[in-house]
């Protein structure tokens, strides 16, 4: 069954079709969330958020784009949102747990720099962010990225290079930290 027919079935309220759509994309969503969060519980939560948003937004999905590309964008946004609120939660928890040293668990390895990196990735224009995340977090090569996004592999390379330059500019004030790490 092609993608468009599957979407039509889902939109008729067919839960079996919804499950098929979910199964087809869960692996990629979870892999992305896992690579960004590094935590199976958070990745699970990000996958939940992603699919709830996907099914809620499916009626408005414009079918000119591939469903996988749209789901990837939703997954990325959900995962970064989750990381932001998790960080706020960790900070509050660290405050109350300072006495029993839990703060050390949440403060390893340059948290400010990592936060700044995630914020800078999220702030990249979509065309650069997608390529950067697919290449750096998901380990896809330019041929795969080009096929997924419908762009030549050379464009993917150029966008990755631009993304790195933009990230480097955004993290300039932390240069001492990443250069010495």
């Amino acid at each position: 069954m092609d993608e468009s027919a599957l979407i039509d079935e889902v939109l008729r309220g067919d839960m079996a079709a919804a499950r098929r759509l979910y199964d087809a994309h869960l692996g990629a969503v979870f892999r992305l969330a896992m690579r960004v969060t590094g935590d199976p519980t958070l990745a699970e939560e990000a996958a939940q958020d992603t699919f709830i948003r996907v099914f809620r937004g499916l009626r408005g999905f414009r079918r000119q784009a591939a469903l996988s590309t749209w789901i990837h964008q939703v997954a990325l946004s959900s995962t970064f949102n989750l990381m932001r609120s998790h960080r706020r939660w960790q900070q509050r928890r660290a405050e109350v747990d300072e006495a029993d040293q839990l703060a050390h668990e949440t403060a390893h390895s340059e948290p400010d720099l990592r936060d700044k990196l995630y914020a800078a990735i999220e702030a990249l224009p979509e065309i650069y962010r997608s390529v950067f995340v697919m290449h750096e977090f998901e380990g896809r090569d330019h041929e795969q990225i080009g096929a997924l996004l419908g762009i030549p592999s050379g464009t993917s390379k150029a966008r990755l290079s631009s993304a790195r330059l933009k990230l480097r500019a955004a993290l300039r004030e932390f240069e001492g930290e990443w250069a010495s790490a």
Partner: protein
Amino acid sequence: MPEDSKFDDFLRRETSRFAEPVTPPADAIWAAIEPEVARAIRPQDRRYGGGTRVTRRLWIGVGLGLAATLIIGVAVGRWSAARETLSVASVATSRAAADDSVRAAAIAEASVLQHLGEAEVFLTTVRADLNAGRRESDRAERSRQLLARTRLLLASGEPRSAAVDLLLQDLELLLAEISSLPDSGRGRPVDEQLIEQRLRQGTILHRIRTTLPAQSSGL
């Protein structure tokens, strides 16, 4: 350039920290979202008030467009005869547009109020359970569902008052804390005590309750 290479090394280190493949718990994730998915894909009622927000807006837009076209046509036709007609048409058009935005705001307000009502019931139950030392098996799952909906409301971009936005943000943090409490007895009592204390002495339940009766005021 050495700095380029150092920066690339830094990026590679940060982005490949968690590269080990992990099998997603497909059935567990599906079980958690299934009710929301069913709600989201349920075929919509075609009568007035049904349809998704997008389709509703589309129809409202089409209706407004037709109304505006009709009004403008009539107005242009009578313009030379009576300038007063124009002002009537313009009042009618702006009233129709105002009705649209009022309806959209009412829908958004109702969603938030319904969610806050559910959260109030849940938090009150959690507070009573923690106070009595009970552990409800569905507490974590229910808090995760409410947490997911809170995040969706926060991300929806609907206009809300700063106070309600802040309330939703605080609710998000509290639900995240509650969902992290284990269902079994392995949790640290201090975590439960802190949450129980915040529910008892904090302002969140009070703020939810004072928001709920004010249904006629703008959110």
